[in-house]
């Protein structure tokens, strides 16, 4: 399952319980982000134990994109059975800030800030 255009891609790998986000996300408002939010929610609904969201390949995210990830996390925190993990690069300051903000919304969120060299 994948949502993409020439600027970005968000792909779900059910067998690995993994969603990978790549590229630059600067869509216009909630409506244009709806397909991406749907994909994220479907991925969460299909997984019973854990789901990983890898944001390392994301080069840019606008405020409507931030809003999409916060909506997703707020939805998922209702699920007691699903452990959500989000990965970002420690060298990319906005990714670290986003992950920490998401963790403030969902204290059980596992955030993994990794060096770019790995």
């Amino acid at each position: 399952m994948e949502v993409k255009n020439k600027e970005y891609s968000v792909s779900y790998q059910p067998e690995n319980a993994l969603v990978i986000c790549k590229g630059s996300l600067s869509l216009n408002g909630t409506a244009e982000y709806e397909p991406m939010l749907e994909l994220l929610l479907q991925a969460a609904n299909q997984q019973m134990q854990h789901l990983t969201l890898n944001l390392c390949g994301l080069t840019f995210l606008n405020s409507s994109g931030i809003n999409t990830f916060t909506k997703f996390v707020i939805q998922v925190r209702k699920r007691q059975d699903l452990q959500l993990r989000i990965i970002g690069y420690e060298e990319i300051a906005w990714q670290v800030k986003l992950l920490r903000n998401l963790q403030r919304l969902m204290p059980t969120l596992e955030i993994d800030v990794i060096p770019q060299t790995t």
Partner: protein
Amino acid sequence: MIKILGNFISDIPIQTEYLQIGFSPSSIPLKQRWQTNGLSADFISEYLEVFFVGQQVVHGEKFVISSQINDAVKYVANELLENAMKFSAPDSDYPTRISFFLFDQQVVFHVINAVTQNSADNLEVLIHTLLDNDPHELYLAKMEANAEESGGHSGLGFLSMVCDYSAKLGWKFEKLAPDSPFIIVTTMVCLDIT
């Protein structure tokens, strides 16, 4: 009548080096115009890196731009351009201009656009909410509130500039002309770069 809110610098030195991008909001459809936001934001952040920071010497040492500053400049430029496109009055032929001023320790964004009286009123309410509350608490509260809503704008742009990038924001409102239905809004964003 002129109204100033927040951290607004009225007298930017004219000899300051600056970059300005202008466009007419109604000349091409929004969807098409939207695609230029990323290009303009990239250009502004690269301009900062190549023409400004590379030349600077702070405390006797060449100042090297961090990726964090570059990201902040790109993010703020993009958000300001998005706002200008979303909220500029479509019936006005007043050009929207984004200017980017370069100082030793700070970069300043300056966006001028024409909006309807209704948009100006809504913006003023939002500004007062922002100025009268703790922005970090407001940021999280807005995220929670948005989770219950299905449409519209996120309202996170200014809050993320303040909370994630320590930006200082200011605004000026003035009537375009005594008999005009439009208000000219100048939005100013200051970012420390040291």
